[in-house]
């Protein structure tokens, strides 16, 4: 398992993407947060989230990674591994 190592700016940027896409201005990310905890996080919005993270961070997730994300902690680790 790769360690979470998003810096505070990156974490803020990621939080902001979720806040805008789900229109939840007060959403706080914690590692155990999953799709079913967030209203509107369905299969379409999952892909939409990935697309927007890819655009904003200029990274690319593989098909397996998109399908295999379990929770926000997992997403953060994956993203961190691609940025570093």
């Amino acid at each position, binding site marked *: 398992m790769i360690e979470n190592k998003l810096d505070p700016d990156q974490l803020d940027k990621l939080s902001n*993407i979720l806040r*805008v*896409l789900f*229109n939840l*201005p007060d959403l706080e990310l914690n590692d155990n947060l999953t799709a079913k905890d967030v209203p509107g996080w369905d*299969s*379409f919005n999952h*892909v*939409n989230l*990935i*697309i*927007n993270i890819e*655009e*904003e961070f200029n990274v*690319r997730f593989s*098909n397996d990674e*998109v399908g295999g994300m379990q929770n926000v902690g997992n997403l953060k680790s994956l993203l961190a591994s691609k940025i570093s």
Partner: protein
Amino acid sequence: MLNKFLSELFTGEFNNALSILDNIKLESPIPSEVLTMLRLAIFKPGQNFLYYQKIFNTWKKWGQPALKPSPTNLKVLFLSDFTADHFSPMIQLFCAAQGVKAEVHLPGFDSIEQTILDPSSSMYKHKPNIIIVLFSEYWLQKYIGNSSLVKQADLEEAQNALSTLISSMRSNSSADILIGNLPGRTFASPSGIVSMNKMMGWNLAINRFNLWLENIAGDRLYIIDIAEAIFSAGGRKSMGNLNFFRARLAFEISGILSVAREFASAVCHLSGKTHRALVTDFDNTIWGGEVAELGSFGVECSHESPEALGFLMSQEYMKNLRPLGVLLAGVSRNDPKIKKIFTENKELALDLDDFASLQLGWLPKSDYISQISNDLGFGSDFMVYMDDSLFEIAQILSVHPYMDAILAGPDSQSTITRLASYRFFNSISISSEDLKRGSRALKLKEQRNFKTSFSKIEDFLEAIQIRLSFVKFNSENSKRLVQLFQKTNQFNLTTRRHREEDLKNLEDNGAEIYSVSYEDTFGSQGIISAFVLIPEADTLLIESWLMSCRVLNRTVEQAVFSFILKKANGKQIMGEYIPTEKNGLIKSLYETLGFNRPVMTLEQNSNEEQWVYSDANLKKSPPKHYVSISEL
């Protein structure tokens, strides 16, 4: 706040501009500068989806207010053979910026045929005003196959299938139908445009399909140039080359946004909510340098240098808007004498005749915009302002909050790029009236000059020999009549937004619908007025009456009324006035014409006024006019 927002929007960070907007505390009523900021943020092209979603959220937070006066409400149905969830909020948002409140329904992915062919399907129950049909290449592939060479017969089968769908939509709905043409394939086809023995490469098949589509347009069917929208978005890289596999998206985000903007712009065009004039500053906007300092030949606008060429091409771009019916106006802080540059410097693309209104002087620029609005006969909400100074843009927007604006510069190439990419002036069809608007504005200008030589208005009106022709609603005038019903706000007594179907229904039920064309010694103004008369047992009801404001103060309304009076043939005439935000101009029209308020009124809506021109009035002489009338 507006100043800071504009500088972030045009010269700083888009995200900072959005944060300024998002941090404004909610208040009621919504401040007009918030509406201006929302609109300008929406119009800014080329941003990531996340930003537009952020604007959408802010707009929603304010209760999705109308961003232009007198918005048009429309139900839009969006049919596609791929996942199109992004389109609904984006089309709503882009339409809102142009004054159209669109309610967008998506019946579900890959359901085009089922939905269209079933007359009892929910799409028809929604009674949409506009149906958008957007196919991907995979829809075409169902008919023509995936082989690199396509059979002519298979292409014809796809065309027949689409013809059947169009017929079904026409017979089950009165909506306008927008169909997108096809961009190239996501993955380049090796067969290109080869052609042999009734077989052709995929690219050629798409070209032929698109050409066929353009030829079947008409009768409520409009073809939208999605191929161009995708080209603008970066071409093949904006096609679904990654996310088609993940979620059946036919386009990547940049493509989705460009296509959504194109459809929204078409929807707004159909509702008459398009920009009708470009108002431009001069120095460092349409040429480099200051003409007062450098003289007519010292400014930069020619083939001589990269910077000068950019100015020349910007001028050519502006000039080319004119044939589409877009008017040009100039505003400059300069001595009026500098206008000689347009006659002296032959290298400029624009000349004096290109400007329907020219305002040179030292007053605040917002005053000149009001003058231009008078000259052109429509409000600043239909205009776009371009200047290289953020100060001037902010000053104008603070007085004209519904005007749209773009910044010119810092170099001339940025100006033409911005002018083209904002898609402010996007035609999907052109009526003959649009074509005439430009020459009409110039005639008006001559007329204003002419008018000053008469001391009495009566003498002037007599001298210009106004002639009105009354023609019943028919296939030739229907397009312009429907356009007038959609667009006219000020001289519109009941503001009933009749569409073609409504007019047909009214006529089938006995109504008499007339168009009125205007002509005088300066030339024709085309159809300038329309009215609907409903004959009842002992009354003639004026159900609708509207007129273009550009013919006001010429006794045209008195002449139209004298025609209606003749049609009443002794019956009493009933008129209605339904006040709106915009039609205060004609509040006293019926009174001026000699109507009275009835003693007993049946008014259901307290605002609505009924007026009667009865026997007692008939003895009075009808209002005087200086117009000759004929019915064709």
